[in-house]
């Protein structure tokens, strides 16, 4: 009887060891395969500039994006564009032409739950520079007592430098075709100008009235992968 019990104990222990080993090997088998880095270059257009045009018809701009994907997490981003502004209001007639360049990085904080999911939640930073030529052919300071003061301000140039923090989402809606938006907090770090007149809007930055701006981009991008693996 004692011998039988010892045998049962032995069988039970052995089965436990086998179960553990089997489970362990299962875990090893179920380890997720590594997500391919899928490096490549995305070229896109910020259609947010056309949305701005719908709300502020005085401003006309175009912005293109180039995004180099190092791996699943890191992207180097360059954004370039121009903006022209023209309006004639009671206190001010204004005209400007300018262009800008923004360079920076994006970091993807979105954890992949499925292979082939290339969606991104992005945090990033940019450094922006813009050059604007602008002038006012007429400005009027209202004075009900002595009469309005009217004068002109000739051609001027401004150079603006700013930094921005980026948060956004980017989703692959068709194979290699992405749609995404970002919200950006921008802060001017340097502004040099040659006139008493400030630029009304700084290309790539937004309205000049504030030294801090909250802005929005809405991008459509096509990704050109450098490898065939996805």
């Amino acid at each position, binding site marked *: 009887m004692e011998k039988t019990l010892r045998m049962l104990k032995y069988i039970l222990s052995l089965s436990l060891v086998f179960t553990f080993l089997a489970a362990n090997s299962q875990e090893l088998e179920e380890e997720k395969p590594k997500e391919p880095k899928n490096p490549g270059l995305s070229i896109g257009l910020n259609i947010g500039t056309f949305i701005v045009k719908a709300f502020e018809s005085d401003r006309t701009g175009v912005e293109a994006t180039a995004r180099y994907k190092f791996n699943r997490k890191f992207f180097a981003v360059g954004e370039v564009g121009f903006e022209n502004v023209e*309006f004639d*209001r*009671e*206190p*001010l007639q*204004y005209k400007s032409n300018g262009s800008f360049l923004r360079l920076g990085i994006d970091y993807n904080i*979105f954890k992949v739950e499925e292979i082939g*999911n290339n*969606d991104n*939640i992005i945090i990033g930073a940019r450094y922006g520079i813009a050059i604007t030529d602008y002038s006012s052919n007429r*400005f*009027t*300071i*209202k*004075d*009900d*007592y*002595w*009469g309005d*003061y009217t004068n002109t*301000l000739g051609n001027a140039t401004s150079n603006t430098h700013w930094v921005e923090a980026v*948060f956004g*989402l980017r*989703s692959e809606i068709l194979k290699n075709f992405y749609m995404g938006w970002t*919200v950006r907090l921008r802060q001017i770090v340097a502004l040099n100008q040659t006139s*008493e*007149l*400030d630029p*009304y*809007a700084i290309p790539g930055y937004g*309205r*000049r*009235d504030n030294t801090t701006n*909250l*802005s*929005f981009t809405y991008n459509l991008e096509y990704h050109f992968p450098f490898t065939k693996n996805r």
Partner: protein
Amino acid sequence: MLKKPYIKWIAIVMLIAVFACNDSSFCLSNQHAIQASFYAATGDTDKDTTLTGIYIWGLENDSLFHDSASVHEMYLTANLNYDSTQFIIREEKLVGDNVIGENDTLQFLYKRDLQYVSGDCGMAFNLILDTVIYTTNIIDSVRISYANVNYGENIENVKIYIEP
């Protein structure tokens, strides 16, 4: 594709963006007016004085800033086409059945400094008061207490001392 919890964050961020884009700036008027007040010319400390029967207008302008009014504080609009502006202050008193009036002339000399306010409000002149030249029929003396007449500021620039 992104999952549902992220849609909530998308909505929140978009709402913040929409509200942040609302521009609530408004434009101020008559910001190049020199603020002056009457004070009694007696004692060591400034004591407010209000004069009655006061008429104030700009030289070579028929419009009155004050018309037979009781005045302590006044806003004298500077002429932006020039670096100086002259104003007439007239005080009328009833003595018996007769009205007796006396005039003084105040001339403000200033520098004009053109400033950008905003795209919606345009430009404005800030003034830097340099000198005040005046006659002394009603006025005892004049002192510039704050020389800058700046857009958006509401500070007394000139103290006019009156002999009681």
